[in-house]
């Protein structure tokens, strides 16, 4: 029962609190560096290229298959109640509200978050960050902030691509393969999906997830212990913590947005 020892317990609590405070301070600094990042947009652009363009393929293909599956599953369930015309509505609402932002954030954490953590962790292990500080270059400003803002810009766009491709996938299965009436498919969708309540809230969700995933990836990389094991552990933690945070935040956001 070593951990019950007040000294050990107190030290652990203090360390956790200090970690939290350090994370919050870094988050605040990254937010405050928005203007500085936009002024050197070349750095942000290169990171959007790295985080966004390279994630486009996995996001597009996943969206297509999620749309296919939604089309099939939705059709089999809806036709039992004789309302297979509502397939378009079902596919669009589930993609725009939930699956688009959430699955994109999970894929983004796996595809882009890990590479951010590994890159920054290795920079730290190779003492590149220390070297920058020696040259009076602020690594938070030069390395972290452009990646942070690039992630926030890329994530809503990726989520929108996911939802749009998914709807097209649902359309391909529902209309082309099964033969749901295309007029009813699009008509019910347009009647039931609201631009601000559904699409707008989906964009807000994906923005929040972009902030969460990118920040967690950067923090884990920046805080990684500068050894090979440290970097590998930080990369794993990025995926675990980012995925859990996204799912928990999704519940909270959904409760806030769609409760009324």
């Amino acid at each position, binding site marked *: 029962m070593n951990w019950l020892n007040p000294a050990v317990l107190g030290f652990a609590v203090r360390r956790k609190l200090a970690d939290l405070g350090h994370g919050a301070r870094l988050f605040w600094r990254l937010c405050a560096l928005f203007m500085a990042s936009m002024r050197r947009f*070349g750095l942000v*652009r*290169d990171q*959007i*290229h790295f985080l*966004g*363009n390279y994630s*486009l393929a996995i996001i597009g293909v996943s969206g297509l298959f999620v749309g296919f599956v939604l089309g099939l599953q939705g059709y089999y369930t809806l036709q039992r*109640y*004789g*309302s297979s015309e509502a397939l378009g509505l079902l596919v*669009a609402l589930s993609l*725009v509200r939930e699956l688009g932002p959430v699955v994109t954030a999970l894929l983004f954490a796996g595809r882009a978050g890990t590479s951010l953590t590994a890159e920054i962790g290795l920079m730290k292990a190779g003492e590149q960050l220390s070297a920058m500080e020696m040259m009076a270059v602020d690594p938070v400003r030069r390395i972290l902030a452009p990646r942070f803002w690039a992630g926030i810009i*890329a994530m*809503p*766009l*990726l989520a*929108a*691509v996911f*939802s*749009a*491709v998914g*709807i097209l996938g649902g359309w391909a299965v529902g209309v082309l393969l099964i033969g749901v009436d295309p007029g009813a498919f*699009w008509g019910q*969708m*347009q*009647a039931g*999906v*609201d*631009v601000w309540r*559904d*699409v707008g809230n*989906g*964009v807000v969700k994906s923005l929040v997830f972009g902030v969460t995933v990118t920040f967690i990836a950067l923090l884990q990389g920046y805080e990684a212990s500068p050894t090979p094991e440290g970097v590998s552990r930080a990369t794993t933690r990025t995926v675990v913590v980012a995925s859990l945070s996204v799912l928990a935040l999704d519940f909270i956001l959904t409760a806030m947005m769609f409760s009324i």
Partner: protein
Amino acid sequence: MERSRNDLWVGLFVLIGAAALVFLALQSANLLSFSLQPTYRVVAKFDNIGGLKRQAAVKSAGVVVGRVESIAFDDKSYQAKVTLALENQYAFPKDSSLKILTSGLLGEQYIGIEAGADEKLMAAGDTITTTQSAVVLENLIGQFLYNKAADGGASGNAAKGTAPKK
């Protein structure tokens, strides 16, 4: 600004993302049908609104002429007070009646306006009281069972009454 290759690809990425957003807004949510016509408000009292919701359509002859703006309960008359926002371009006679209708078997509920014959036109702030409530399935079934029982009893009596005559 160097590295124009990256510029091109990032531009393409942003373009694809923006195109996806536009697709979602226009094709799936139909932003264009979002009506920004000036409207006037009319209050209607219903005994029972069933599953009517805010933003439900108000239709006349099947054409959308307005939206339900708010729904409240009036504890003086124990009725539902529904505020409708009708588009200015459509005018209706003062004695028009309202009905709560359902699109399809499981579809959404909407309000149908049936034009009356009055010469005067409805103005903003008017209250419509000639309304027909939503059809509540339970009441309908109850009524059906009641009629069925009454029919059964009547025919049974009739059979009994006629039997001795033969």
